[in-house]
């Protein structure tokens, strides 16, 4: 689950939680400018895909790089 409010996802038992940006723009940050925002978005989605193939035993937080 990609979410800005990751604490809720963790306490409610989502197995793989990807830290998103803000509630208004979960998968990216327009303040970064077009190019950096694209990379950030790509990092988030890539981390989500990597997380899917990662074995977890409890709700686990994954933190994508912003830059």
């Amino acid at each position, binding site marked *: 689950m990609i979410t800005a*409010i990751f604490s809720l996802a963790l*306490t409610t038992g989502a197995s793989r939680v990807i830290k998103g940006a803000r509630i208004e723009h979960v998968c990216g940050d327009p303040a970064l400018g077009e190019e950096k925002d694209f990379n950030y978005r790509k990092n988030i989605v890539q981390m989500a895909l990597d997380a899917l193939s990662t074995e977890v035993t409890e709700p686990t937080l994954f933190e994508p790089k912003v830059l």
Partner: protein
Amino acid sequence: MKLEIGTFYVKDVISSNVTSYENETLKLNIEEILKEILSDRAIINASIEIAKPGDSTRIVGYRDIIEPRIKISGKGVCYPGVCNRSAETVGSGTTFRLDGVGVVNLSDLSPTPKKNNSNNSKDNNIKGINSGFDILYDMSGPSADIIPYSKIINVCLITNTDPDLSIEKRNWASQEATLKLSDIISKTVIEKKPDEIEIFNSPESVNPDLPKVVYISCHNSPEHFSHSVSAFGTGIYGLTRLNAPWLLNPNEWFDGAVAGGNNVSTSWLLVNNPVIKDLYRRHGKEINFVGCIAIRTRWSHQTEKNITSNQAAKIASQIGAEGAIITWDNGGNDFMEVIRTVKACEDSKIKTVFITFEEHPDTGSPLLETLPEARAIVSTGWGRNELMPIDSIPEYDLKLPQVNTVIGKKSIFANQNALSGTIDARSELRTYLWNDRYGVNKWSAFDY
């Protein structure tokens, strides 16, 4: 800080050629009052209607309800900060209040800039904030028993604001007009002797044998969607933006330092907050009431939410609190700051009691996030029963009787006639009908 509150009971409100208060009757020279309201060029149209408990009347689309209050001595004005009113710190001296009457802000205006202002626009009803201002209550019938505004005389001010102005200016104008009317009413009692006087001597004397208790109130900020910095939503000294936690003297509440309507709160409710009154009444007997902390909710980043909660708990620790009572006034992601404030207090060895409504019983947990630290919870109920609609299930549609008169918006969401009895609720409105947040009504709950 010592505050003396003089109460005048209002049993009737009538139209007259002089605005005055005598023998529990408030007389209003409506023509003269409207002239004063219309002297603001941002108000292009205004009218006043009076609704009394027991009337077959539905009030639709109220933005705020204000209890007339006025400072007789001491610094500042009641309902400070908002609409260029004095920002002087309030809470000391003498304040007079009129009990049993509320000035209702009814405007055709949507408080956000994006949506159409038409009453009939479907667009108005898509998201909670606009439909939130289609919230309604009846002055009689089954719902009148549970909604506190049905039990007071409503002096309704219906305004139209200049559509060429910005939303901020229009929000401002409609709230300023309502405050102006509240001031006109409260001025009628300046020279009179109140029916009742209550003295609130704020928490200076502390009995070392009793535990210290703080009240933490959480207030939604409409900053993200309102584009209004002060005139719409619940403000603290008029400020509605997201900002750091405030340490307030409980007396400041009685002078309206925390005021302004949002989806579920009104100024009337906030100045009559029963939690603060009850904490005061127990001060020195069962507890030491050491103060109030107000926090803003609906930050949009996890870190901001955590900072807010942690700072609220830090301030509570710093003033020596051993116990905290926590309330909140909205829904959804606002809950994150609220429940984490409970946790942060408990982690700081401050025992908490959390006063909250419950989520829809069919959706699982009664709280959005259940943390083990929230051990003592007072439920104000689910807030909706067979009177209140759930989703689009016909048998749960709002079952209110047909009424003779509608004050405010004549149609509500999805173009429905506001007079009709059964209301097909397919908008967010359903969640904003009435939710008790401070324990003001008479309902009690069963244990789980």
